[in-house]
Structure formats: C-alpha cells, structure tokens
C-alpha cells in the first residue's frame, strides 16, 4: 500500500481551508493540570503528579505515565539531582512512594522530599524516610490556573503511541512520532520532530495564534484554539508543514512557504 491506510481520505487539498466541524466547541478547561510533569527549580527537580479525579483509582495509568516521562527525558537528567514530589491531595501509600523512588533511582534521580496536603500521604512519606512538606489543602479555585503564565516547554523524546495523551500548560516539543490514537494537547505551540498522525491541539485555552508544526502532517485531527480540521489526503512527497489559523480557519502551509510569506517576526509586527 502506498498511502497510509490508517487515514481516512480527508477533504480538501493542501493549503485549502480545512473542514471545520460544526459541533466543535471551545475547549472548556484547556490542558489543565494534566500530565505528570517535571520542572527544574534552582538546585532541584519538581515532580508534580496530577490531581486525582476519583480517589485513588488511577494509580496504574499514573505510574505508567511517570515511567514514560522519565524515559522521554532520559538523556537529560542530571545525575544525582534531588527530586521533590508534589502530590496535592492524592493518596499514596508507602509501596507506591517506593515504586516512584525506585523508578527515579533508575535514572539516578533521588527522591528527597514529598509535598502533599493529604495527611495519610504525608505519614507514608515520613515513614518511608522522606522529608515531608504538608501544604494546606488547595483551594478549589481551578480557574485561577487559566490565567497562569505558561510553564517551561515540555520536551519529550519518545513516540506518542495509541492511548497516550500528553497535556501541558505551555509549548510542547515531541522528538518522535505521534501515532494514530495518540494525542498532544498544549496551551501553546506543538512542534513534532517526526510524523504527526494522531491528534494535536495547540492553543488549547483559546489562543488562536498558536501553531502546530511537524515534519510530516497526516493527522487524524488538528485543533487550534476552538477550531478543528482534518488533514487532507497526504501528498505523495512529504515535507515539513505548519498548521495555523487564518481568516478561513485552520490552514496548512509548507514550512518554507510559511517562513517566507506568512510568518511575521514579532518586532516587525509592532
């Protein structure tokens, strides 16, 4: 087979305006406090686990996501960095804390401190010998996060496989493919150094200036801010492309064309 069999032939040829699905609604929460997230802060790494949706059911998926994030950054961890684990009100037992510590240990990161608002988790952490910081329970004021400045870019060196969803409050760089059934949702831009065949949603909190860039765009669905498009049937020859919002909706342009004609550097725009 020459064309990718996983893609339904889509609507219009390349830089034509895309189909905007009528039922597409504006994203409600944006990426939210989503994925497991590493962030460096001065002399240590902060490892934030997402807030539990239902009490304690989602340990296995969480655990796998953590493993994936560790692997996806494997080349970049600084040996013997100290890690502070931030778990809000999630219930973690000693065994789970030890699993996390062991996983970190495999890439020579050291779990040192656990930051939680949950008493049982704090006790488990103390019993396991970690320093404990017990923050007061978070205010249920989620909307404040919407206005929060973007986090550092998330740089992942991995294939985003079917069933994996990466969410990040910031820009995302994927070194690898996004496979059909995989998705990346970002408040900022999404750059894929690889093939984009799953779903990418840039500007997920409503920023229409965000872009999706990939070496090859053959996406199941592209979303920017509150617009949705399917990609056209892929051209025989692939080249890097940029998806952006124009007055006619989401458009695709080859990277070279985009660089020449469309991209206006910020200083000239002023």
């Amino acid at each position, binding site marked *: *087979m020459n064309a990718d069999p996983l893609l339904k032939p889509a609507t219009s040829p390349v830089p034509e305006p895309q189909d905007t699905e009528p039922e597409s609604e504006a994203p409600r929460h944006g990426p939210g406090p989503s994925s497991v997230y590493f962030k460096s802060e001065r002399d240590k790494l902060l490892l934030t686990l997402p807030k539990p949706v239902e009490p304690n059911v989602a340990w296995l998926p969480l655990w796998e996501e953590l493993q994936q994030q560790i692997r996806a950054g494997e080349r970049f961890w600084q040996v013997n960095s100290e890690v502070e684990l931030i778990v809000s009100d999630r219930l973690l037992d000693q065994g789970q804390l030890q699993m996390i510590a062991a996983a970190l240990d495999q890439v020579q990161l050291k779990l040192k401190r656990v930051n939680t608002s949950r008493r049982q988790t704090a006790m488990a952490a103390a019993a396991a010998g970690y320093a404990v910081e017990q923050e007061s329970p978070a205010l249920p004021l989620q909307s404040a996060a919407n206005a929060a400045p973007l986090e550092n870019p998330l740089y992942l060196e991995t294939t985003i*496989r079917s069933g994996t969803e990466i969410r990040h409050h910031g820009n995302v760089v994927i070194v690898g493919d996004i*496979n059909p059934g995989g998705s990346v949702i970002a408040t900022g831009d999404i750059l894929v150094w690889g093939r984009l065949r799953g779903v990418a949603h840039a500007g997920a909190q409503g920023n229409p200036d965000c872009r999706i860039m990939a070496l090859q765009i053959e996406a199941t669905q592209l979303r920017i801010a509150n617009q949705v498009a399917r990609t056209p049937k892929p051209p025989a020859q692939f080249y890097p492309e940029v998806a952006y919002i124009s007055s006619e909706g989401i458009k695709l342009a080859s990277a070279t064309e985009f660089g020449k004609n469309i991209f206006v550097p910020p200083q000239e725009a002023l």
Partner: protein
Amino acid sequence: MGRIIVITSGKGGVGKTTCTANLGMALARLGKKVALMDADFGLRNLDLLLGLENRVVYTALDVVSGQCRLDQALVKDKRQNQLVLLPAAQSRDKDAITPDQMKQLALELSQRFDYVLVDCPAGIEMGFRNAIAAAQEALVVTTPEIAAVRDADRVVGLLEANRIKTINLVVNRLRPAMVQANDMMSVQDVQEILSIPLIGVIPDDEQVIVSTNKGEPLVLADNLSLPGLAISNVARRLEGQKVDFIDLDAAYDKSLLARVRRFFR
C-alpha cells in the same frame, strides 16, 4: 537464568496462542528447555493447541494456593520432552491470581528452563498485567489490520512504560496477494507505525487451522508448511541466528506467468 518472554497483542484472536505453542515447540526442537505459561485464565486454550488438554491435572492456581508443587503442575509434552506447559485455571475467575504471584512462578521456571514463554490474554486489563509482570522481553503479535495495529501500538506503549526494553514484532496472517492489490497493509506499513524490530512474518494459511484442530503444532510436521517454517525462523532469530525472511510474495504467487517472470528477473 532463562529468558522470560511474553507473547501479547492487545486485540484478541490475532494468533498469540498459535505463536506461543509453535514457538515453544520450535525452540524445543532447537534443543532448548522451554516452559509455556498460559496466562489466559478463564479462557485457557494453550493446552488444546498443544494437544495436551487431557493431561492437565493441576493448574497455576493450584500451585499458588499450595495445592500442589510447581513441578507437579507442569505437563510434559509427549513428543518433545524438552517442553512443558503450566496450564491456567479454566473455571475460576481471572482475578484469582496477582501479578506478584505470576512473577514468582515465571521466575521459578526461569531457573530451570532456557525459555519461559507467557501466552497473554487479549486486552490490557488484569490478565495482561499478570502476563507481563515477570517478562523481560515481549513479542507483539498483530495482523495487518488497522484495529489490530492500533491495539498493538497501545500495548507497546504499556510495555515500554513497564520497562520491558526488548520488544519484537510478529506480523501474522499476511496475505501477499491482498497486499499487492493494495487491499491489506503491508509489513512495512505496520512497521512504520509500531517502529519496533521485526522478528517474524507468518502467512495466512489454512494449515494453521488444520494444525489447531488436530492439536499438532505446525513446526512438528515432517514436511514443514510455510507458516511452520516462518515460526521456526522466529525461534532461530530469537536464538540469535541470522535468517532471511521468506519471500512470501513468490511463495504464494501460484500463477505460471508470475513464476516465469520471476525466473527471468
């Protein structure tokens, strides 16, 4: 320490059990000591494919519950004394065994056997967790179909997340004529998505069904069929031998014209 390899797929019915049974047999024929573990609790049929059903006395569950010793539960193959089967319980529910217990059993077997092959149930629930608990390697089996490949991709992600680093691909039920007619994904199409090393391509062949029904693994036939040869080749590749892939296009192209054309190529 033997190698513990899980045979898994995500989607059901793509040929995991067929591969496990035949691969076990093929490895045994190469002189390896092989233990097959059926991790498909509640729906076991590895014993059936091996033609060992009537010799099952105890199951893995009896071992973990202390009803019998591990070696009492192992069913030895009458044709290949290098091969044993640890059957799964048929009747009781799937959650009767935990990943830790499965791991324990597999590790114990790996002390005594060169290969421990674990036949994984379909899906990614508890049965899957049990089956991968002890595995250091995985064979991901898929057919060249969108849904099967999608599920295989999901499974590869989960295996990677569980730190199983050696993951190889088996494409089963390939129909070269359909691929040529653009009616089926090619092996290359599958590989492009899964991006893991290819260790075997098994053609769709009625011999497989015949052997399943007889409880006689393909690789035992005196005159090896193509799918039998394809699976023996997987065994040899696992053993580190370099074996060329069979030219299935040619093998299944029965038209004289094509044969003549091939001759002059």
